């Protein structure tokens, strides 16, 4: 399956799971909101240039926003992590090894420790920005801090569960493809 088709399927699955499963679950607590869909942006291939990353991030966020009736909220957060992503990757992995051998970021391609750092930094950024925008409209500062921590916690748990449950096959970059 080509990267394009695979990623379109992935986006559809992530949005459906987010909108129809995670958002419909009876909430554990009002601060604990599981968010998983942004993993789609984290899993995009290395080969994408920065502009198309931004646009894909924007479209992903907007798609979710139209389902959740919050136009712009998730789009803003997704554009932010799509913009930051290349910087984090270039810091975490040396140019001459992984990026040239593998197609997309994964624990196998980058090693568990750098991959975990990559996921954690982007998750914290995404959730902080998202919660900040919500907090600007409503709520106290303490609410904001607690919500960032609890939402990040539950989302990281989900991300690593997904990572363990659905191991992606590592694809080497070849000259033929």
């Amino acid at each position, binding site marked *: 399956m080509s990267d394009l088709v695979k990623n379109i399927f992935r986006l559809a699955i992530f949005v459906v799971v987010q909108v*129809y499963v995670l*958002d*419909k*679950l*009876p*909430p554990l607590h*009002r601060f604990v*909101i599981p968010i998983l869909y942004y993993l789609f942006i984290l899993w995009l291939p290395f080969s994408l240039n*920065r*502009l198309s990353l*931004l*646009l894909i991030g*924007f479209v992903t*966020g*907007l798609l979710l926003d*139209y*389902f*959740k*009736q*919050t*136009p*712009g*909220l998730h*789009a*803003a957060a997704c*554009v*932010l992590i799509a*913009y930051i992503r290349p910087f984090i990757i270039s810091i975490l992995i040396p140019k001459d090894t992984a990026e040239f051998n593998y197609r997309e970021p994964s624990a196998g391609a980058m090693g568990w420790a750098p991959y975990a750092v990559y996921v954690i930094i982007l998750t914290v950024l995404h959730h902080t920005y998202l919660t900040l*925008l*919500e907090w600007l*409209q*409503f*709520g106290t500062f303490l609410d904001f801090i607690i919500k960032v921590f609890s939402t990040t916690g539950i989302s990281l748990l989900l991300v690593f569960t997904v990572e363990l449950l659905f191991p992606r096959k590592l694809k080497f970059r070849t000259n033929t493809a």
Partner: protein
Amino acid sequence: MRNIFLFIRRYFTFLAFVLLQIFSLYMLFKYNKLHHAAFLGVASELTGRMNTQVDKLDDYFHQGEENRRLHKMNDSLFNLLKANYAVPDSSQRSVVDSALIDSIKQFRKYIWRDAKVVYNTVSSEKNYLQLNRGSKYGIQDNMAVLNSDGAVVGQVVNVSPNFSEVMSLLHVQSSVSAALKKTGDAGRLEWDGKDQHFVQLKGISKSVEVKVGDTVVTSRYSYNFPPDKFIGRVAQISSDPATGFYLLKIRTAVNFATIQQVFVVENLQRDEQMQLEKDTEKKVEQQKKGK
């Protein structure tokens, strides 16, 4: 000029990032104020179709409960049937009505339309419901939404041809005019974003006697909601230190997590009432200026 182009080329990604951010934030803040956004109509047609399909599946899991509720409702209506009441013979006599104009003729003020909830959340601070009826069916902004037992759910904020979006009571921007049934004192009903079972009633004076368990209904002063519709019961009484009014915690009659069938209620005189209010304001302003 050349330098400007060079600058743009060099920082093109960053500029694109800033532009997209500005666009998203513009959409967000505009929507929070006006509940309108670009392409929202087209988008809610698409999300609505999808939500309808998922909702069909979801219905199978709630049919038993829904059936029991409907049966209860039928039972209460059957009890109201004329056939249940015997009429004594002595009351039957013919009377000639001499009035030329029917002075007790009633006119219609509210129209009820049925609708089905296709998407619904309770976990966010801003909860919306999506209904499977839209402008084609006569739904407009600001119409009241009641559940199948007649208790208040929220009000319509946005419509597309086949679907409509409802701001539920569980929305931090929601504000509904509500009153205590016993005394008739009116206040504002708001949500603090904390517990999905409780909303807050503000602006009830401390001179009013309130007890836990008192019924709260929609007030007669609301343009959107029909009067005396059940909202919930007082669960906790405390006083608001800032204003000197009561701060009443109300347990809602509607269980927002399981809501399925609703009524959309249209106030046929709403436009007239709004117009009158606007005209009055204008008149008062003019009189002030004239002095």
